[in-house]
């Protein structure tokens, strides 16, 4: 299916130039294009101007500074997987990235593009809302930092305003010893969209040797990624004696799955309970140095 709508194409060399072009009526930013070009074919978007960001070197960086990981808007999933600093500081992000589509897509698709498309099944949603990531946005009028939980508004709808550009994301890193796990349920192994997904992070707290903080979020079981605060609280209160049966009973209150072509809502709910338990066990094991390697197949 060719793209029948015609548009102009510009590839600016500076961020300033890019923002000026994006301020024009009906201008759309192009990074990896793996979603956008599909949308152009389906006429979901009909821009007058495509602004290719790939000439902006400052958006290609992955940096660890100020206790956070900064990932620029042009960083692809393949680059996340290969990044040494991510492998050391936040290996679960590589685990997530390996679950996205296929190699040929990951070589092109960007992490920031994933959260800009904001489909309910996005793989990067749960970690971003759970870790209190900030979406870094620039417009002609200045910069904004939008908490991930406020970024996702509805399927394919984000807090970005017309003319604004997402330049990157900033993920605060755990201060203490921490481990995490991302589980994604698909219909088969290999390239598929998530039927349901769960992200769990456990961090040793400064409050005491046995005190731990938990972060939990689900994906693909609501219009936007769901942070599971009731579950987090129950986990933090439970210490080492967590009643799994009681804990999984909290799951229905945290998510709102629907039935669609990929799964029924009953199956999604059930599997969220199963996956929560497994992800907690894996993250706990990783924290103690006995868990499965990041990226291992756990479903």
């Amino acid at each position, binding site marked *: *299916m*060719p*793209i*029948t*709508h*015609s*548009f*102009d*194409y510009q*590839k600016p060399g500076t961020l300033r130039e890019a923002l000026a072009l994006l301020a024009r009526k009906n201008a759309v930013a*192009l990074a990896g*294009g*793996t979603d956008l*070009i*599909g949308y*152009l*074919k389906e006429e979901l978007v009909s821009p007058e101007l*495509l602004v*290719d960001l*790939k000439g902006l070197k400052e958006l290609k960086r992955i940096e660890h500074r100020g206790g956070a990981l900064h990932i620029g808007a042009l960083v692809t999933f*393949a680059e996340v997987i290969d990044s040494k600093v991510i492998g050391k500081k936040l290996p679960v992000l590589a685990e997530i990235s390996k679950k996205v*589509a*296929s*190699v*040929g*897509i990951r*070589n*092109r698709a960007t992490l920031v593009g994933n959260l800009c498309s904001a489909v309910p099944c996005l793989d990067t949603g749960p970690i971003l809302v759970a870790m209190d990531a900030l979406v870094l946005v620039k417009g002609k009028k200045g910069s904004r930092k939008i908490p991930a939980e406020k970024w996702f508004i509805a399927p394919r709808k984000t807090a970005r305003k017309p003319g604004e550009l997402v330049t990157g994301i900033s993920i605060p890193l755990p201060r203490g010893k921490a481990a995490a796990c991302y589980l994604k349920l698909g219909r088969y*192994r*290999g*390239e598929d969209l998530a039927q349901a997904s769960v992200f769990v992070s456990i961090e040793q707290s400064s409050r005491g040797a046995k005190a731990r903080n938990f972060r939990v979020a689900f994906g693909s079981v609501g219009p936007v990624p769901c942070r599971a605060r009731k579950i987090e609280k129950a986990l933090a209160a439970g210490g080492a004696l967590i009643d799994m049966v009681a804990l999984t009973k909290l799951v229905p209150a945290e998510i709102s799955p629907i039935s669609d072509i990929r799964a029924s809502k009953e199956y999604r709910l059930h599997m969220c309970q199963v996956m929560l338990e497994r992800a907690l066990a894996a993250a706990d094991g990783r924290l103690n140095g006995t868990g499965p390697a990041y990226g291992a197949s756990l479903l």
Partner: protein
Amino acid sequence: MGDGDRVKKTIRFVLNGEKRAVDVAPQETLLETLRERLGVKSPKCGCDRGDCGTCTVMIDGRSVRSCLVLGVEVDGAVVTTLEGIMENGELSPLQQAFLDRNSFQCGFCAPGMIMSATELLARNEKPTREEVQEGLAGNLCRCTGYSPIIDAVLETAGVVSKGGSDERS
């Protein structure tokens, strides 16, 4: 390939080792540029949405779905298609292994499979069967002949013997 009413752009890039310059409409995909303007026919249009892999080519050594890339985006890049991976006029060892093992049936997926496997072996000389499966995921063979394809990749890497398989071992 709708040329529309917009101004075409001249792109210059290296295609299979040769410098090329071509005028493209901003809305045409790299797949259209390659097939319809430059006569390079190995990348095929299957699903046209990045799910099937038969349009796979390499940009700067990394496999991409050419149906999800615009022609204008490869200005200044090095693009390689199946036509460009023969070595001094000879089939590459991977191509030879595909041939020896009858790894294609209808052949429609073969260019994408070979491009993806070429990238995999360049980055991982001794992949496991699971790594080959992961590397080829997103390349669909509708004849469902995956085993001989995976075996050809493993044979090229020296992981299984010529004509052999580790599948049930």
